[in-house]
């Protein structure tokens, strides 16, 4: 199929016709390999990684005898190990994919073929088939995964409840509604097999929220939209059975179209590492070039006369020899670019993310949610339902007494929503709401005696003060981001038709009847008051409708909803027409309660020099509230809380306000930037975005309110683009997804608002306050560990390699190695791998309590103080010095010496053993002094590695190994003959002293003269710790007080009850929503 599909045409019950279009069938394949293709494909994939390809290149070089300065196994063993480890992991992943594919493909389903329901495998289902889906109601809620996109046909009540967790992560139930036409067929097999509908619809795409198509039956057109289709990946709930027509199969389904690869996020360390690796390559080639020139000189001056003893190979002259020696040295010195670097970095990253997952202090027991690092493992659980406990008996009484406006207010709340009731057990009513706000409002109505009981597509049943009333549902004018309101049109038992509407204040106000001017004024006051308290507000209004107008409107509505062209615009127009001249009922405010510890967290992070930008969809009032929490001591008050006019925004765009700080003599002046979505749209334009960024960066706090999800992402991109900073985005809502994806580090809070934010994040946890632990403890540790790891890794490999460089001057630049080949093979792989991994996984300079107490500890990381190009150069100089010591001390000690019995000690093999033992001892000691926290684990690894070195070396140099593998282990007896010499041990001791003491001395002096924040904290006596604890606790209680003040006073005040319009103030006891601060700063992985 090489043509791109423009429109899909499906005929029900007509396989031959549908097959002619060659639509994909329903078999899916997510696996990448099969048994035959695994090896070649997987190897190909792996060799596309630069490091692997480089080592393959080395391996090939080693197979050329003239060049091969090392046996093939020195490169082949590590390479094979790395390749096979990756291959095993890939194979395992692929086997799992195969398994799940097979399971999905072989699932059974009832398909209507030739008028009979047949049990078929999913993979055999064709586009155009009619299938029957079932689920066991209530009892077990079996997951029925739909393989296909289906047009919905029928169900007992024409309603199908689905859960779309697998698709978009949202766990609430959604309703899908069948066309009345098809619904009439019921489960009559005859009717279904005679059904001759034709569906024309859009080609396969990955948009989960949009679908457009028409069903043509007997020349009549019926519109199909997102409500009429079931997507693959949904789970049928609370529904006995339903029939569906398959429109898309297998790879064409939206689920499969959506399963794209997530892009790999790189940290600044990654970036630096890549630069360094390139530098190292350059350095390597420079070294080799120098040595090759040395070789040319040597060959001309000395090699040419030495040919008596060592004739040149035919055709090789000094020039060619020097060229060959260049490549030989590339092989010998390849340890500077070790293959194990990338593997080790992966392992350390994995390990550190496991530590995050294992952290009890980031586990939230209330909903059993541990922190998750998604690069590793991904899982979520269903969140516990939010609990509301708001009871105000006075208010309940008022409602009971029959105040009509109060009743209308709560009736609206009970009717105008899209909440689904779910009665899992008899008498236990659960509401499944798309947003927690909506759930809260319906629950509030319930608490006031207006209980929403059940809904069908045509009716809504509520209990009004204990009396069952069924309303006929005429239309739902749904909510969307543009409309910012939703309405229902119902016909009451008395036959009266009413439109109930709720929505954003500004939107509703524009559509109110003139008669409620006075009420509007009062309400506006309350709304501002609520917004100032950080509450989320909605305005409620209603309107009575006339019978004849409604009839005509319904007719036009039907036409518009079946239109194929411009359907949405036409519907919007209709909605606009009917939603006007409404009567104001009142306003609701939902407290957007911050999670515990948000202010402390922000304060802590601010102390750690993390710049915090708040990007919120809420009004400025809310932002101000957050801001006050951020900097309690700083008084911030934007004078003009109203939205700025566009012209003003064009001219100045944003206005800076000097904030009065208590200690303003300390700081020149703290500024805060507050900008709203309107202005931001202009500010983000090409010519102004830099100006915005410059100004914003001068400010201590940046708050963008009323911003759209897209703008959030744009701001993040802006910062990423022009500031070489690392961004972290944290959020919990679906509107944060784009921002989370755009930032370097995305953090999702597993809260109420679905799981979308969590799904697209790199890390997720249940509480905002865990962010400080993620950054200040885990982030800091990870960064520190990674830096130490890299620094030490480069150190040990450079030292290892430079020794070869010095030896070149003694061996005629012939690419002779200093060490035994086996030592070269095992040095990175065995002798030093575990100690350095333990450094990268377990080291802590200060423990977590200290990291918390001194957020300032975090700032060195932002300045890249632990590892940078400068540190890298230091590391090179250090290595260079150590390698000089490690070569010339053994050289001096041994070159004119003999054993105590006169026999040879200055031979190559003894020297190799001495040099490699010195090296290993020195790097082990260096590791120990680089390690801040000596635990049993890392000491075990260090000593274990040294012991393993001795044991392995003894074994390899033993008689047995020589007699069996004569040419592979020629070093027989070297250990026994040289390690029993005091000379050798004195040399090892001296080299260790000379390599290690300067480092110790330098560090000591630096601590004395210029102590870093780390040194200070590490030195701080333990007693101060108690004081810190006290400080934390006072701070916390202060917060709790100031926070609860907001709604407590309002709710209990008498004033509140008799005011009109009646307002409901709701508060969640469970955490509901967090602000969505956007933080940016350079942070480490």
């Amino acid at each position: 199929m090489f043509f791109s599909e423009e429109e899909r045409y499906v005929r029900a019950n007509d396989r031959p016709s549908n097959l002619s279009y060659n639509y994909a069938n329903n078999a899916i394949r997510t696996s990448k390999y099969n048994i035959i293709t695994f090896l070649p494909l997987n190897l190909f994939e792996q060799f596309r990684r630069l490091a692997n390809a480089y080592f393959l290149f080395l391996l090939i070089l080693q197979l050329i005898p003239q060049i091969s300065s090392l046996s093939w196994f020195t490169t082949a063993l590590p390479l094979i190990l790395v390749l096979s480890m990756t291959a095993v992991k890939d194979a395992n992943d692929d086997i799992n994919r195969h398994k799940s594919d097979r399971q999905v493909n072989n699932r059974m389903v009832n398909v209507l073929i030739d008028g009979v329901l047949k049990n078929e495998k999913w993979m055999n289902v064709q586009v155009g088939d009619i299938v029957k889906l079932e689920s066991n109601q209530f009892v077990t809620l079996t997951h029925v995964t739909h393989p296909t996109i289906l047009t919905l046909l029928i169900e007992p009540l024409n309603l199908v409840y689905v859960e779309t967790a697998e698709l978009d992560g949202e766990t609430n139930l959604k309703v899908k509604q069948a066309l009345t036409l098809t619904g009439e067929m019921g489960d009559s097999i005859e009717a279904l097999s005679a059904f001759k509908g034709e569906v024309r619809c859009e080609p396969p795409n990955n948009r989960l929220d949009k679908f457009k198509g028409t069903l043509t039956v007997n020349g009549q057109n019926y519109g199909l939209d997102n409500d009429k289709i079931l997507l693959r990946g949904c789970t049928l709930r609370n529904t006995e059975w339903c029939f569906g027509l398959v429109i898309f199969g297998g790879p064409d389904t939206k689920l499969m179209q959506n399963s794209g690869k997530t892009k790999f996020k790189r940290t600044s360390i990654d970036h630096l590492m890549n630069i360094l690796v390139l530098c190292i390559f350059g350095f390597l080639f420079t070294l080799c070039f120098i040595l090759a020139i040395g070789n040319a000189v040597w060959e001309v001056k000395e090699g040419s006369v030495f040919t008596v003893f060592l004739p040149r190979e035919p055709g090789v002259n000094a020039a060619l020899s020097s060229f060959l020696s260049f490549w030989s040295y590339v092989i010998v010195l390849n340890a500077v670019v070790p293959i194990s670097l990338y593997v080790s970095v992966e392992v350390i990253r994995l390990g550190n993310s496991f530590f995050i997952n294992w952290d009890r202090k980031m586990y939230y027991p209330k909903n059993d949610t541990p922190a998750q690092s998604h690069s590793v493992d991904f899982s979520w659980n269903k969140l516990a339902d939010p609990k509301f406990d708001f009871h105000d008996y006075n208010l309940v009484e008022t409602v009971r007494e029959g105040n009509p406006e109060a009743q209308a207010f709560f009736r609206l709340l009970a009717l105008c929503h899209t909440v689904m009731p779910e009665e899992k057990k008899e008498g236990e009513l659960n509401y499944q709401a798309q947003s927690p706000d909506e759930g809260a409002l319906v629950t509030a109505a319930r608490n006031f005696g207006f209980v929403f009981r059940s809904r069908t597509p045509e009716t809504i049943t509520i209990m009004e003060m204990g009396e069952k009333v069924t309303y006929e549902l005429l239309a739902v004018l749904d909510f969307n981001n543009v409309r910012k309101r939703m309405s229902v049109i119902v016909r009451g038992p008395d036959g009266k038709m009413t439109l109930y509407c709720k929505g954003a204040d500004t939107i509703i106000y524009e559509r109110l009847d003139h008669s409620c001017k006075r009420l509007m004024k009062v309400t506006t006051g309350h709304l501002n008051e609520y917004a100032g308290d950080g509450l989320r507000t909605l305005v409620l209004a209603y309107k009575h409708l006339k019978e004849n107008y409604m009839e005509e409107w319904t007719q036009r509505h039907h036409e518009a909803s079946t239109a194929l062209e411009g359907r949405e615009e036409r519907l919007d127009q209709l909605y606009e027409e009917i939603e006007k001249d409404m009567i104001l009922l009142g306003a609701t405010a939902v407290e957007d309660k911050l999670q515990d510890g948000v202010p402390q967290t922000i304060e802590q992070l601010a102390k750690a020099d993390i710049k915090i930008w708040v990007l919120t969809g809420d009004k400025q009032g809310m932002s101000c509230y957050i801001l006050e929490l951020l900097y309690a001591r700083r008084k911030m008050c934007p004078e003009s809380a109203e939205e700025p006019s566009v012209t003003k925004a064009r001219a100045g765009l944003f206005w800076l306000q000097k904030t009065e700080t208590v200690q303003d003599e300390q700081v020149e002046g703290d500024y805060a930037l507050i900008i709203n979505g309107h202005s931001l749209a202009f500010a983000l334009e090409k010519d102004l975005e830099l100006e915005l960024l410059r100004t914003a960066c001068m400010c201590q706090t940046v708050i963008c309110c009323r911003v759209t999800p897209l703008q959030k992402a744009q701001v993040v991109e802006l910062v990423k683009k022009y500031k070489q900073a690392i961004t972290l985005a944290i959020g919990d809502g679906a509107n944060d997804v784009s921002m989370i994806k755009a930032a370097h580090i995305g953090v999702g809070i597993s809260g109420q608002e679905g799981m979308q934010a969590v799904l697209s994040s790199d890390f997720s946890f249940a509480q905002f306050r865990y962010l400080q632990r993620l950054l200040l403890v885990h982030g800091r540790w990870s960064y520190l560990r990674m830096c130490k790891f890299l620094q030490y890794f480069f150190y040990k490999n450079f030292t290892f390699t430079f020794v070869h460089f010095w030896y070149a001057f003694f061996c005629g630049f012939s690419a002779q190695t200093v060490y035994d080949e086996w030592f070269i093979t095992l040095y990175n792989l065995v002798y030093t791998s575990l100690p350095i991994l333990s450094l990268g996984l377990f080291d802590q300079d200060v423990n977590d309590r200290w990291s918390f107490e001194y957020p300032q500890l975090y700032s060195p990381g932002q300045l890249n103080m632990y590892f940078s190009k400068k540190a890298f150069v230091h590391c090179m100089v250090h290595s260079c010095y150590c390698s000089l010591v490690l070569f010339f001390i053994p050289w001096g000690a041994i070159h004119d010496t003999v054993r105590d019995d006169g026999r040879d000690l200055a031979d190559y093999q003894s020297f190799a053993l001495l040099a490699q033992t010195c090296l290993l001892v020195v790097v082990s000691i260096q590791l120990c002094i680089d390690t801040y926290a000596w635990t049993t684990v890392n000491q075990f690894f260090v000593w274990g590695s040294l012991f393993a070195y001795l044991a392995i070396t003894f074994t390899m140099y033993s008689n047995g190994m020589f007699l069996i593998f004569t040419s592979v282990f020629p070093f027989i007896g070297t250990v026994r003959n040289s390690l029993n010499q005091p000379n050798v041990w004195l040399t090892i001791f001296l080299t260790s002293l000379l390599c290690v003491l300067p480092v110790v001395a330098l560090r000591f002096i630096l601590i004395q003269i210029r102590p870093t924040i780390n040194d200070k904290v590490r030195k701080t006596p333990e007693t101060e710790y108690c004081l810190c604890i006290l400080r934390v606790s006072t701070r916390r209680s202060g917060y709790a007080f100031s926070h609860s003040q907001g709604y407590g006073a309002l709710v209990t005040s008498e004033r509140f009850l008799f005011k009109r319009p009646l307002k409901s103030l709701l508060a969640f006891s469970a955490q509901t929503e967090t602000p969505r601060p956007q933080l940016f700063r350079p942070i480490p992985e």
Partner: protein
Amino acid sequence: MGKTKDKSGPLARRPDNSAFKQQRLPAWSPMLTANTVLPFFYLLAVICMLLGVWLLLLVQSTQEIKLDYTDLGNCNECFDLRRNVSNAVQTCSCRVEFSIDKSLKGDVFFYYGLKNFHQNLRRYMDSRDDGQTLGRIKKLKNPSSYCAPFDKDNDGVPIAPCGAIANSMFNDSFTLNYHLSSSRIVPVPLLRTGLTWYTDKNVKFRNPRADNLTLAEVFEGTRPPLYWQKPVYSLDPHDPNNNGFINEDLIVWMREAAFPNFKKLYGILNRADPIFEKGLPKGNYTIDISYNFPVQHFQGRKGVVLTTLTWFGGQNHFLPIAYLVTSSLILLTAVVLTVAWWKFGKDGKNMKE
């Protein structure tokens, strides 16, 4: 999708409270404080000083006589003769004289030394076949290709021992004479065995085993290396057990030196003779040299070394002096550290935030 854990209940997914997982392993943080670092440095300075002095005394107690005979005395003629490769078959011997002012007490070791001879070239070091010298019959007749071009001669006859190392074996021989008086010259007896590592003599090098065959018969069908005058099975005319691959001169040579200047053990003074019971007495000595090894090809020098030993080996001043220098450096550093601590760190002002 969730983790499969056996636990259930409200806290099913709570992480384990182990010290490892919570990163609370008991740890000791070594800190660089003045109390630990300064005494440590002073202590190390003292230790190094003591070690240095002790080793220096030890090294001073050994005696060593070095003699470069490349073109010394009448060896000059041989030196000139060997300039030309075509004269390789001609024998040449010469004699050098020296005197010992202070008798060498105890065991005396006789070394020959070479300068600027690169035994550590990669291709040179590869050019050997350990399988052959281990006495593997198969390898004897079919040496490894690593030995090329010294694996077979022009007629295709395998060379034993093969390779560049064996081919370039040092082939000067020495006779040390003691001038007891002006008329009486006594040859100094040298032990020509016991020069090698035990493992080399007994494990690494073995003669090919063949029942009822003499060594010469075993090596039949092979050729000695091109530069050799004698075949490998008759290297030592005096001791039949010191022939073939286990000839100690061969083994000593085959243990390649790490650096281009090296010395290799030639013999050990046999103190059975009453004259040499206590070592080498003072007096005049001559060495008769069968001058074969050409050094002018590589601009090298050759010489002999007579030395006594201690447990610390021969007369190598490097380590004692290195220890003394290190000691003084550490002391200097320690003083600097003390000053730095005294001036900056003592009152802890820097440590306060």
